[in-house]
């Protein structure tokens, strides 16, 4: 048994707090969480039942926290965790869980199964049992500052491009600005129009904002792989930069897990509260709209539906702003049957999209989203997460659906009323 594995088991043991202990005590193996998990509903494989993904942790809990388990261990009736346990479960812990949190909403005894899985990942990653894709992403996030290898130079090049296209200047390292904006690498790489939209909206609303040259990356691979040391390091960079610039707020971009990382996990990772507040871009836009600082010229008459990014809604608590905003720019907004905090995941959250090994399973589990979209009878899906957007577009392509995906912030920027008259009138 390797030293690394022992460290992993020790780490797993450390993760068992009162919550997890009460969760395991309460579980009666009713299996209802399976019905909430798209990996189970779309494959019918009972191994994908959420609570089953926690068997290794449960075994350890039983040996450390229950009378019977301690007794059994002392008498040699139960074996300690083996490398095989981790090897067999790695796929369940990383490939078949997007940390979407749906199971945590339905558990009759109220277990936050998603929380448990994210804690289980701490032990697994420490023991070296994590998918290569996530390992690489975390490595790059630590070394380069972005899981996708986006350097400051690249960001500056993209910003230059944005400045040129919008004719606006993007403030960098502006001391004392109100808001410091973060991006996800995905936005820099695949959806620079998000950055452009932000620049235009903030200009129209007169928001005092800046980007930090020291921390522009909002995502946190440390959270996804389950390594709190790495996660703390990544969050710490943002905190240091924001506090150096003396901003009042840090804006989390559309990206889902970036928000939970910086808003909810961050202070606990670095061990102290921030000296600034964290606000999600959708919350801010909604505020600006309410304050009358931005307004829209017309609405799209195209029927639209909204895909809720799990981490923003169910795990983040931002539920209403996106709906108010979307209603502001869309005539005909149709909700999916399960929406808001009970939405179905796109299938690519929690690091699954960065894990090539999971591609086949992910494609299969997209069927849930396909049916959901088809039920609405709408051809335009709006969302607010670069990763969800990619997953949706992949799935739509694979299933040959006639559906288009749009980012909400871009949609808003498209309908933004600006003082300059050269704005495009949109269809």
């Amino acid at each position, binding site marked *: 048994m390797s030293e690394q594995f022992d460290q992993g088991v020790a780490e797993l043991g450390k993760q068992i707090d009162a919550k997890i202990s009460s969760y395991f005590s309460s579980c009666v193996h009713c299996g209802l969480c399976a019905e909430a998990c798209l990996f189970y509903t779309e494959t019918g494989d009972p191994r994908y039942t959420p609570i089953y993904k926690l068997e290794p942790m449960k075994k350890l809990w039983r040996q450390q926290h229950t009378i019977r388990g301690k007794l059994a261990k002392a008498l040699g009736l139960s074996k300690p965790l083996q490398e095989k346990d981790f090897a067999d479960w790695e796929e369940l812990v990383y490939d078949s869980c997007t940390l979407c949190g749906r199971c945590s909403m339905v558990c009759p005894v109220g277990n936050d199964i998603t929380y448990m899985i994210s804690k289980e990942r701490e032990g697994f990653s420490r023991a070296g049992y994590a998918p290569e*894709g*996530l390992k*690489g*992403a975390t490595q*790059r996030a630590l070394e380069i500052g972005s*899981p*996708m*290898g*986006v350097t400051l*130079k*690249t960001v500056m*090049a*993209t910003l*230059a*491009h944005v400045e*040129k*296209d919008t*004719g606006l200047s993007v403030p960098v390292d502006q001391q004392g600005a109100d808001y410091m904006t973060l991006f996800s*690498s*995905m936005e820099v*790489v*695949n959806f*620079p*129009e998000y950055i452009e939209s932000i620049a235009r909206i903030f200009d129209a609303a007169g928001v005092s904002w800046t980007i930090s040259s020291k921390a522009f990356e909002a995502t946190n*691979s440390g959270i*996804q792989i389950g390594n709190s040391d790495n996660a703390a390091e990544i969050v710490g960079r943002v905190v240091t930069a924001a506090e150096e610039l003396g901003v009042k707020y840090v804006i989390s971009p559309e990206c889902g897990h970036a928000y939970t990382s910086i808003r909810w996990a961050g202070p606990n990772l670095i061990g102290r509260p921030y000296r600034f507040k964290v606000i999600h871009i959708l919350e801010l836009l909604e505020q600006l709209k309410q304050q009358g600082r931005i307004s829209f010229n017309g609405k799209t008459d*195209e029927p639209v539906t909204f895909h809720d990014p799990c981490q923003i809604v169910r795990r983040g608590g931002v539920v209403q702003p996106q709906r108010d905003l979307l209603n502001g720019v869309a005539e005909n907004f149709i909700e999916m049957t399960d929406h808001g905090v009970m939405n179905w995941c796109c299938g*690519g959250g929690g*690091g699954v*999209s*960065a894990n*090539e090994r999971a591609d086949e399973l992910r494609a299969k589990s997209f069927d849930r989203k396909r049916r959901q979209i088809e039920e609405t009878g709408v*051809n*335009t899906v709006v969302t607010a997460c*670069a*990763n969800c957007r*990619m997953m949706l*577009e*992949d799935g739509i*392509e694979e299933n040959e659906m006639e559906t*288009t995906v*749009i980012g909400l912030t*871009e*949609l808003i920027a*498209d309908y933004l009323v600006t003082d300059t008259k*050269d704005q*495009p009138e*949109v*269809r």
Partner: protein
Amino acid sequence: MSTIDNDADLRKALKQLNHEQLRETGADFVASVLHLSSDKRVAHAVDVARNSDASDDELLAAYKSARVATVDSRTRCGADCNWEEQAAHFVARASAAMVAPEGVCKAADPSWQVVMSCRMAQNCALIAADDDSINDESENQYCIMNDYLNSH
């Protein structure tokens, strides 16, 4: 006719064009960055767009395969970004918006999407080459537009 030298004028000029003309100018825009992509589906989309006899079905088919090329070529979340491939991705995206029959592409302004995607492609190419020079694809596009307007 005044020459175009900024985005506002470019947008205005594009607004004057009908869908077929937009396809023609779009094809010109994409062609200027086509060297960044080696995907046959993208090149094919440009050919179809240039063919004024192309039927709606042909356009639609070309659009669909260009869209598949778009999805195929992009960098997945959390993967180490290869900027050359990313450049090709943006070319593919531009080609899809360009060849789409009227009303098929859901972008707020498909013709503008072509313009922007071509610029992003150039941007990615510069990043890939570690080239610090300014992306001048927009100037290039003004010229293309001027040429087009002058010849029609």
